[in-house]
Structure formats: C-alpha cells, structure tokens
C-alpha cells in the first residue's frame, strides 16, 4: 500500500508546475510519512487530496503567468502561424494518392457540427463584456476584432479539411482513417477552444495579446469584493479584468477602454 500511496503522490506531482514540483512532493511525502505513523487520518484519502492541491497550484500558476511574451502576440504573426500549419498539412498530403471520390459535403458539416456541439458543452463561448464608452474605438476598428476571429476559424477549418482529405485517401473503412477522423475531431475542438481563449486575451483595438498580469484583491476573501487578474494593453488601449472566482456580479471578463489621457504612459 505504501508504494501505491507514493505512486499517487508522484502522479499528482505531475500536475504541479515544474518549478514547484520537487518541494511540493517533498512536503506531501513527509506529511504522508507522519500520517502513516500516526494513523489518525486515512492515508489513502490523504493522498487523494494531493490531486486537489496539485490542481489548485496548476490553475493558480496558469492564471498568474499566461504566456504573454509569446511570438504569437502580434495578430499578423498569429494568422501567419495558422496559415503555416495549414500549408504544412497540405504539403504532407501532397504525396498521398487522391481519394477516388470527392469528400461529401455532409461529412465536412457532420464533423464541424460535432466539433461545435462538443465545444458548446465544454467551453464558455462568451468573449467577455466590452461596454460602450466615449473612449471606445470606431465601428470599423471594433469589426477588425471579429474579422480576426473569423480568419482564425477559417484557417482552422482549412486544417480540418486537409485532415479529412488525408482520411479519405486512406479509404473509408480502414482503421487508420477512423482513428484519424477521431483525432481530427478532438484536434478541431481544441483548436476552436484555443481560438476563443486567444481572442479573450487580446486587446480589442490593436488585437495584440495583453500583458503584465496582476492579481487584484485576495482570493481567500472574495465575498462581495473585487478579486481578479488584471491585464493591460502595452499600447495603452485599455485594461482587462478577469474574475478569479466568477460570481453573479462579476461573472465574465470585463474590458475597460482608456482614454487619450493615458497615451503619455
């Protein structure tokens, strides 16, 4: 049993951010030793709690340190990256013999529909609150944000189509083709999720990724108090507030436009 408990702790440790993992495992292993010695608490249940602790650390780390210094911060680079992936997929399927019959449209729509259904069931589709204000940009600028989202989706769909072409070339009834279609479905859902998440973390004016995350308020005392992660557009267009604990009065992320008086900063 002792081996199993240590295996549980090691499995939970995989969830902990790497820089904290060694110390975390040392603490839990030490406490497990005492739990087994004293016999006051159920050692198995004690080990199960390690997963909750590890998940909390993982979630906390991902919220505090989003990958803001990414190469994908620029919207054009982001689209270029997706286009590059599509081009790579097309190059990969070039040597593959073409399918004897064209892919029926219903197969494409079926895959898209299933991906959308899974997305609806597993992902928050809201992109947040962007309240109108005097500092809000023109309609044309605001439309750019939607065009950018549509372009990302279109490039993801193009990747899906390339994958379907590959699956079709393998033949309808082969096991590899079936596995490929399943993988394509999962990949599409993940790609759409990423597209939405990426869209939420971008400035609605310049479309660059927001940076400088800062925790406002205390997570341990969130009741009726402002408690969120604050991100800022480095070009001074505004600030984004993401609730750490979504509540009825602060459920979705909220954008605040900054007026021209901030431009000097």
């Amino acid at each position, binding site marked *: 049993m002792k081996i199993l408990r240590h295996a549980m702790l090691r499995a939970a440790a995989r969830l902990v951010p790497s820089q904290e993992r060694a110390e975390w495992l040392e*603490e839990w292993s030490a*406490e497990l*030793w005492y739990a087994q010695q004293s016999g*006051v*608490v159920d050692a198995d249940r*004690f080990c199960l709690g390690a997963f*909750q602790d590890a998940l909390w650390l993982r979630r*906390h780390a991902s919220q505090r340190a989003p990958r803001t210094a990414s190469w994908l911060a620029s919207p054009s680079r982001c689209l270029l990256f997706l286009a590059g992936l599509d081009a790579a997929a097309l190059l990969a399927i070039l040597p593959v013999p073409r399918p004897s019959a064209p892919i029926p449209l219903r197969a494409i729509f079926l895959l898209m529909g299933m991906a959308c259904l899974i997305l609806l069931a597993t992902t928050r589709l809201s992109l947040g609150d962007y309240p109108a204000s005097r500092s809000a940009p023109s309609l044309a600028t605001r439309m750019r944000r939607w065009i950018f989202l549509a372009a990302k989706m279109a490039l993801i769909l193009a990747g899906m189509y390339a994958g379907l072409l590959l699956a079709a070339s393998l033949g309808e009834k082969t096991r590899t083709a079936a596995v490929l279609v399943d993988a394509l479905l999962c990949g599409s859902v993940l790609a759409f999720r990423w597209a939405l998440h990426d869209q939420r973390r971008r400035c609605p004016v310049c479309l660059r990724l927001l940076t400088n995350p800062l925790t406002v308020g205390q997570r*341990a*005392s969130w009741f009726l108090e402002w408690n969120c992660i604050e991100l800022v557009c480095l070009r001074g267009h505004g600030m984004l507030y993401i609730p750490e604990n979504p509540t009825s009065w602060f459920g979705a992320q909220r954008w605040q436009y900054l007026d021209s008086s901030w431009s000097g900063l």
Partner: protein
Amino acid sequence: MIRMAGETKLSHTAAMILQALGAGHVYGLSVMEMTGLPSGTVYPAMRRLERDGLIRSQWESQSIADAGKRPARKYYRLTRAGKATLEASQKRYPLLAKLAPVAETGQ
C-alpha cells in the same frame, strides 16, 4: 463567508485554519486533525493564505529531522497580518476560539 470588523474577509475554512495555526498546530496534517477538514481542502486553503500574506511557511532544519530519523517537515506560522485577521474574526465570532484555544505565546 465571514466579514469582520476590519476590511479583511475570510472564508470559514480559512478562519478555521488560521485558528488552528494560532493554536500551535503548525503542520498541514495537524491542522487536518484539529479542524476535521480533508487534505484536499486544507492544503489549497493554506496556499491561498500564504499567497495573501496571512501565513508563511518554512522548512524545519534537516539536521533536526535527521537526528530524529524522520523526514523534515514544512511548517506554517501566522504572520502579523494573519494574527490581526484572526483576532478580528475571533471578536466577531467567539465560537471560533472554542475550536481550539490560541497559544498564549502566539506563533
């Protein structure tokens, strides 16, 4: 949730953990034993409290642990802000103090 006399607010779980730490139960396991809370609740709550500056953690000396032929433990103590928060919560909720009397010497 508890709203105290000051501006600081705590969850019941956090208040119980602060009370346990104030009473001298400085290890996660002993906090579990005292409060009856499971490990999956106690440890994440302590991480939050530490992040918010109400408690701080420290590893005991390896030489002491080696002398006792046991693994070194990480212990937690109240910070000044944590003590003030605990006192405020005890004034508002006297029953909290009955959970465990806080050590006279403090932490």
